[in-house]
């Protein structure tokens, strides 16, 4: 929330190749979407400056609804707007969106399969100094368990832009998980996002890293480090957690006997959980999960926290090396 460096990049064109926070890409994408599609409406719960929906509010004040600090009411209202034929995007911090309003999401949004887009920012440890109360490490699990929910975790600004456009076209409930901190560009300029389709950077014959969000960049770094030591590790961006791209997952599991998942989330119930569940039933290989280990986050600088909680490229490298040498 409101740090001085948070003045956002005011770009409306493509974010391909640009280091930018995914929430900034969201703010810009929403404005573009608002211009093209009059049905798009946006709701926020007193965090529009931080989630970047304030940009949409400025451009289309009559289609923006600040709900105040009342996340449950926001989700219910979004449900009603969708029933009135609108395409509501409802945003706040990830923990308040998925945690506070979970049962409203389950009952109102998912059970009726409403066309509501829940786009949350400030997920994971990289929230930083605000600490555990504000760091969602459970949100993917909370959303993934809901029947009919689509769950997407973009890795950079370019991908986020495309995700926002794609979910506006898609009919049904969607959860999109975004971050606070600036992230490097990882997706190639010719990349085309499709819901349910993972992106294979390359397949490795020793190991394959299945990552999402900020961990895609860490996975690519880990690959470079491992290559120098003669270890061939592949990297896959599993941007859609649900529905899981099981075809790509099987390709990876066929290419190597070791799968490593990496996410800025608890290893329980998120990407690692989804991958382990699928593979153990369909194609058992060794699966190692990188993520937080049944713990809350804490205050600190984002990079510092990623180190403390074992979510760096180094941690991926170590996991792969120690597993392969066994």
């Amino acid at each position, binding site marked *: 929330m*409101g740090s001085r460096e948070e003045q956002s990049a005011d770009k409306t064109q493509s974010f391909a190749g640009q280091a930018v926070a995914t929430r900034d890409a969201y703010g810009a994408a929403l404005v573009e979407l608002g211009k093209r599609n009059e049905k798009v409406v946006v709701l926020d719960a007193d965090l529009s400056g931080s989630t970047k929906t304030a940009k949409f509010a400025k451009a289309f004040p009559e289609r923006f609804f600040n709900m105040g*600090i009342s996340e449950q009411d926001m989700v219910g209202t979004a449900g009603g707007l969708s029933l009135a034929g609108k395409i509501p995007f409802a945003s706040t911090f990830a923990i308040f969106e998925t945690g506070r309003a979970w049962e409203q999401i389950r009952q109102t949004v998912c059970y009726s399969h409403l066309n509501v887009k829940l786009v949350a920012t400030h997920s994971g440890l990289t929230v930083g100094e605000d600490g555990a109360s504000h760091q969602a490490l459970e949100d993917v699990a909370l959303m993934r368990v809901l029947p009919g929910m689509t769950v997407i975790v973009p890795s950079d600004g370019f991908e986020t832009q495309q995700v926002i456009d794609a979910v506006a076209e898609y009919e049904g409930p969607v959860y999109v998980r975004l971050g606070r901190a600036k992230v490097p560009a990882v997706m190639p300029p010719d990349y085309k996002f499709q819901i349910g389709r993972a992106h294979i950077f390359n397949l490795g014959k020793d190991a394959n890293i299945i990552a999402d969000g900020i961990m895609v960049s860490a996975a690519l770094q880990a690959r470079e480090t491992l290559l120098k030591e003669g270890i061939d590790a592949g990297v896959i961006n599993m941007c859609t957690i649900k529905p899981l791209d099981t075809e790509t997952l099987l390709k990876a599991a066929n290419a190597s006997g070791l799968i490593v998942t990496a996410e800025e989330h608890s290893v329980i119930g998120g990407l690692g959980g989804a991958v382990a569940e699928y593979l153990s039933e369909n194609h058992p290989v060794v699966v190692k999960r990188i993520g937080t280990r049944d713990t809350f986050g804490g205050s600190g600088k984002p990079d510092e926290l990623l180190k403390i909680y074992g979510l760096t490229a180094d941690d991926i490298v170590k996991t792969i090396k120690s597993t392969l040498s066994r």
Partner: protein
Amino acid sequence: MAVLTQSRDIAFLKEQARIVRVEILKMLTQSGSGHTGGSLSAADIATALYFYKMRHRPDNPKWEERDRFILSKGHAAPLLYTVLALTGYFDKSLLGTLRKAGSPLQGHPSSKLLQGVEVSTGSLGQGLSIANGMALGLQLDNSASRVYCLLGDGEIQEGQVWEAAMTAGHYALDNICAIVDLNELQIDGRCEDVMKVMPVSAKWKAFNWHIFEIDGHNMEEIVNALDEAERIKGKPSVILANTIKGKGVSFFEGKAEYHGLAPTKEELEKALKELGEDGK
């Protein structure tokens, strides 16, 4: 470490409140992030509670007969940490670790990590329910302890607050005193513009609460209301405290931007001068 001195003397309390503001600003600048506006707006109230009204023993934080304080607006953690340090719960030097990795002084209060914090907060709207539970439990034990709960005016937009207001009214929890910091601002701007929450006094009244409306920066009015609230029987009490966000530092006052911005070094210097701390 500080030794607890409590007094009803207004001049004493005003001086403590000034020192509390000074320490809040210093720790925020050192941390480089944190919530300035809402810590300053409630500084006089928290000072009156910790330096006068509440029965508490900093050397024995779990003393059974203590009064309880719940910071429902958990982002005002710098304020809570400051009054805890200045009344002797821990050494003042710890204030410099605010929001640093591994510090017990987390961005939002953690009762697991810090003595004197009754319960972890930071997600708005949950404190009053907890206060109700404590109050019910204390009544079952025939305890004379009271429960104080500080809320923000943006925070009371949360539906849970009104569910809790109904509960306290229904169970006639006269050992509860809620305090609402009516500084008229939340993150996205004025409460009036973001989500009209006023009028509040009619709402609390409708849930069977006894109402006090005071100037939340007038120490005399604060201690009078706290004293009187203790004498109200058969109903919970709420103190609706009209305040100014950022109070005490002219260039932070009434500014929504300083909700979550820490003072820069230059701002700190100017602020300390305004608080009569230059040269120290």
